[in-house]
């Protein structure tokens, strides 16, 4: 570069304009380093889960790299042990029955609310929105006991029954609603941020054409918000699928009703120092979330943020 007879500044400028968006070795090196750093913990668990019990207890997982092809270093026995200890079929179905509606219900409710907060005029708009955002900070552990009391006995002021005794405890509906309640503040907040950033010209022109709010929402806002909706769907699904506490409290821990995380937590609790079983169990619990994530990750790349429509 420096030996060129032409003035030095010109060269980088021309090159910069030509391939502006590709990085050099610095970019690739930094990215690789961060990715490696992020992967190491998981790799450790993955390798440990495939090593025999005796070896796991005695040597660090990184020692496999010394002789990776020795058969005595590897086994599938841990996975069989973890699966045998669990009753995973039923738990898997329960997790599914909890997770799908508990994902769709809050997102539908939040999308309608986010639309209203963004594009409808009504009294108390800001106050109500601040309230919704503020509720993000309520630790859900704190809400469990009051809600449990509501579910099993309703609520009354004096003799007046203000909340009916619905006997929701132990039902799927009870868990769905609880998850909806805990997921709504973040869902409303993120979707409001996205829906509120759609260009007002689109909404206004639809109104000019005589579309009512329900139509605008369904035909215009929802299709335009697909990236955000899809991204939040994955997000809420992961959260519900990985939840332990809510399902334990409202659905119960019997073999018939327990969800997958609970089945695994019991395994972990029962065998605290059995690293070979724990690591295998941990990987079983990660399987579906990882599958869902990798299948839908392209939505995540685009979604979850403001600025959907360029310009």
């Amino acid at each position, binding site marked *: 570069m420096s030996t060129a007879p032409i003035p030095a500044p010109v060269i980088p400028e021309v090159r910069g304009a030509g391939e502006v968006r590709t990085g050099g070795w610095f970019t690739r090196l930094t990215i690789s380093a961060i990715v490696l750093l992020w992967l190491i913990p998981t790799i450790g*668990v993955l390798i440990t889960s495939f090593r025999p019990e005796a070896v796991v207890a005695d040597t660090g997982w990184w020692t496999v790299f010394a002789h990776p092809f020795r058969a005595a270093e590897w086994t599938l026995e841990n996975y069989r042990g973890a699966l045998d200890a669990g009753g995973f079929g039923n738990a898997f179905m329960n997790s599914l029955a909890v997770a799908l509606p508990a994902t769709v219900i809050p997102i539908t409710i939040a999308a309608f609310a986010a639309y209203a907060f963004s594009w409808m005029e009504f009294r108390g708009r800001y106050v109500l929105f601040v309230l919704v955002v503020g509720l*993000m900070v309520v630790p859900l552990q*704190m809400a469990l006991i009051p809600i449990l009391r509501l579910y099993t006995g309703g609520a009354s002021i004096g003799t007046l029954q203000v909340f009916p005794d619905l006997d929701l405890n132990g039902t799927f509906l009870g868990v769905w609603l609880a998850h909806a309640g805990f997921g709504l503040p*973040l869902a409303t907040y*993120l979707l409001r941020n996205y829906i509120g950033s759609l260009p007002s010209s689109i909404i206004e022109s639809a109104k000019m054409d005589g579309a009512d709010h329900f139509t605008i929402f369904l035909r215009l806002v929802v299709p335009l918000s697909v990236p955000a909706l899809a991204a939040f769907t994955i997000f809420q699904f992961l959260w519900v699928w990985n939840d332990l506490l809510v399902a334990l409290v409202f659905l119960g821990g019997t073999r018939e009703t327990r969800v997958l995380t609970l089945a695994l937590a019991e395994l972990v609790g029962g065998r605290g120092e059995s690293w070979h079983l724990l690591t295998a169990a941990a990987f079983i619990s990660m399987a579906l979330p990882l599958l869902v994530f990798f299948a839908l990750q392209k939505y995540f790349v685009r979604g979850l943020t403001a600025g959907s429509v360029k310009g």
Partner: protein
Amino acid sequence: MSSTAEEVRPAGVGGSPPPEAPALWLYLLRVVGALAIPIVAFFLLWGTFDFLRDADANRFLVVGVAILVGVGGVFFLFWAMNRVVDLLPERYGERVRPYVFVGPCLVVLSVFLVYPVINTILVSFRDARSEALVGLDNYRFVFTDEDMLRAIRNTAGWIILVPLVAVSIGLAFATLADRLRHGEAVAKSLIFLPMAISFVGAAVVWRLIYSFRPEGFGSNIGLLNGIMLGLGNEPVPWLQKEPWNNLMLMVIMVWMQTGFAMVVLSAAIKSIPDEIIEAARIDGASELQVFRRIIVPSILPTIVVVTTYMVINAMKVFDIVYVIGSPEASGTVVIAERMIDWFFISGHDGRGAAIAVVLFLAVIPVMFWNVRRFREQEAIR
């Protein structure tokens, strides 16, 4: 004004026929129909709930019906309510409709979050078994107890460090990954991967990293101590040395949440029009200048959202501290963990509630920051 215009019009001139009033019976039928739809729907849903409660039914069928009802029911509810509002005279209808849209959100939030919050505020002025009133005693406890003060200090550390590190790494990674020719999606997915792991899983992952065995209790299988031994040092009890053990726990949260920050910020960076960045480069701006003067200001709203989310999560941090360390013994207590401890373990509802109230109050500045930003957003769109 408008009402007089309407009154004049039917008698008006111009040859257009007077608008035909719909027959009364037709109107009544629509009203009855619109009211009947939600009621019938309600009883239908109720019937399926009884079915779902029936444990003897085929498990697959129960799960199938549950998914169908849960997914379909909520949308049907909105549709039915909107139909009811359509029947109101237009003037009232448009005033009521926003509440149909936000109503379900507010109702669910009232029951599942607002009611517990009010309940907590009331309990915070009462004694251990929430019977006698004790005035501000519980609040005095919050700001004088040794462990509580440590918890407040530690939580302050979490609130500052975790969002700062996670958002910085996320932003740097998103910016750099945007320039990769190949493998951008793969790299991002791998950073995001910890988000998909349940807490049970993450606890296993990190206990294996920090694992420590003192001499005579077997060889160290934890990665960090493996490195220490390899470098010829003594193994370190990572989770017991105060205050560094707090940092060790924060690393776990950064590991789990950077992916979220990175994905959201990356999407925002991609929505910056290419022409702006190219124009700046042609004008001779260095890459650092492009980043500081164009990329960061353009995605500032998103940075605010992500940071808010991280701050709130850091305030609520509980599981990591609770499951991985032994908080009280090793000095890693945080506010939310103290709250759970007083509620469920030490059995003093009043103190637990007072801690929770302090936690809400702490978030108020963050909320105001957000509202101001939303007003700005509405002013420019």
